[in-house]
């Protein structure tokens, strides 16, 4: 579904991604794990069109999308839930969700998707008229995910959905991620909590300083000594 081929991304003169390649198949949950600053978020931003790769190709359903504008990529079915949630704090929950469907014109479909988002996140329904900035961290994460789903994506990019949340909430969020995936949305998940990410993922890539150092089946990686040592808190 998504194929990233040897991309290099720079911030000014600093290289953030170094010849990264990866592949995501339809229906999968694929996770990127790695330390802070490894380049995980940069990769997501490059896929969603916020950053442009200097070299390399990104193919979505066989067609190149590298260097395309973010709005074109959203329209083609890739939604990105950014790190830190980035909800529009000065607008209501309802307006945030409407913005998620900004490019769509099918009123009926939008209505159906709103219902679906309320089903997944009943909390949002209770808070529709509230300013997004007054929500708790967990609720903001739900809103950010709900907002992304309003674009009816076929591929959902999630950046650190567990960041700053209480353990119980993290569980809820991850259960919902699995639910979204079962309903047919492919997921690329960036997560610092490697244990958790590997527990729901089909496959994983390990990123270190802008390169992919390891990849494979999630279960295999969970038991690999190298991953245990570096990311799972093993001894």
């Amino acid at each position, binding site marked *: 579904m998504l194929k990233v081929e040897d991309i290099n991304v720079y911030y000014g003169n600093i290289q953030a991604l170094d010849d990264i390649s990866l592949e995501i198949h339809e229906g999968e949950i694929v996770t990127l794990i790695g330390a802070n600053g490894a380049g995980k978020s940069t990769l997501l931003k490059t896929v*969603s069109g916020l950053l442009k790769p200097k070299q390399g190709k990104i193919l979505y359903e066989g067609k190149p999308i590298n260097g395309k504008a973010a709005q074109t990529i*959203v329209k083609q079915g890739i939604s*990105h839930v950014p790190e830190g949630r*980035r909800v529009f704090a000065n607008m209501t929950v309802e307006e945030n969700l*409407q*913005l998620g469907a900004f490019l769509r014109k099918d009123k009926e479909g939008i209505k159906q998707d709103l219902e679906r988002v309320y089903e997944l996140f009943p909390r949002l329904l209770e808070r529709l008229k509230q300013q997004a900035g007054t929500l708790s961290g967990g609720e903001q994460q739900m809103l950010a995910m709900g*907002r992304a789903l309003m674009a009816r994506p076929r591929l959902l990019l999630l950046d650190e959905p567990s960041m700053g949340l209480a353990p119980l909430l993290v569980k809820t969020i991850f259960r919902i991620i699995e639910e979204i995936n079962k309903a047919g949305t492919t997921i690329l998940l960036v997560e610092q909590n490697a244990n958790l990410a590997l527990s729901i993922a089909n496959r994983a890539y390990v990123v270190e300083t802008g390169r992919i150092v390891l990849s494979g089946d999630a279960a295999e990686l969970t038991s690999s000594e190298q991953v245990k040592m570096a990311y799972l808190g093993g001894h």
Partner: protein
Amino acid sequence: MELIQQLVNGISLGSIYALIALGYTMVYGIVKLINFAHGDVFMVGSFVGFYSITVLHLPFIVSLILSMAVCAVFGVLIERIAYKPLRNATRIAALITAIGVSLLIEYGFIYVRGAQPEAYPGDVLPEHAVHIFGAKINSQSLLILGVSVALMIILQFIVHKTKIGKAMRAVSFDAEAARLMGINVDRTISATFAIGSALAGAAGVVFGVYYIKIEPLMGVIPGLKAFVAAVLGGIGIIPGAMVGGLLLGVIESLVSAFGYSLWRDGAAFIVLILILIFLPSGLFGKYKREKV
């Protein structure tokens, strides 16, 4: 009773400031630029109104709409030509460019048509005295107030209820997150310039009808005062610009009413200084401490 009359004058003048201030504040909200050429858009709007009334013999409302349309296009052109290439430049570069654009419009305009002033015809709007609470009020001030209030209501509707309005608020809050929603940031910025400039054009026509005399440098002082009004209300905050404009108009009229009319123009800038010292984020702004 004199006081009520002065208050009404102040509110009329203030609603003109408010219309101009809205453009400043909307543009600042979205691109963090003080568009110093905004006062000159107001001037161009006033002249478009003048020519459509005197040369094309159009009625007031049609002239108003024509002037708003011309200014909207003009505002978008200014943004595309002068500011867009500097989107990622330092803010001081953009600010200096804005001052340059302002001078270019003023003296370009003088070069093309000359510096002589014009006078709006006196019979554009019916003029008679209305008696309210024993005060004699010019019907024109009420009409001007009505036009301004109507435009502000339309603006509120656009900003809160339409798709482009929501896009504008989203981009001004977080442009990158807005892009992830599929919002075209460039187009949204253009729309903001168009709406802000249209309001300045309307203010120009209203100003001409009310104060009669117009000339190519007429935008400078009202432009600066509207900037003060925008800062007074809290730059970037739309209701702030409305309240700031009205308040500034009333303050100026009261200063005149108490016999200090020579200090009128100074009053606005004293307000600016006081606001910057005591309430730097304005009446409606939340004071944000710089995080270290």
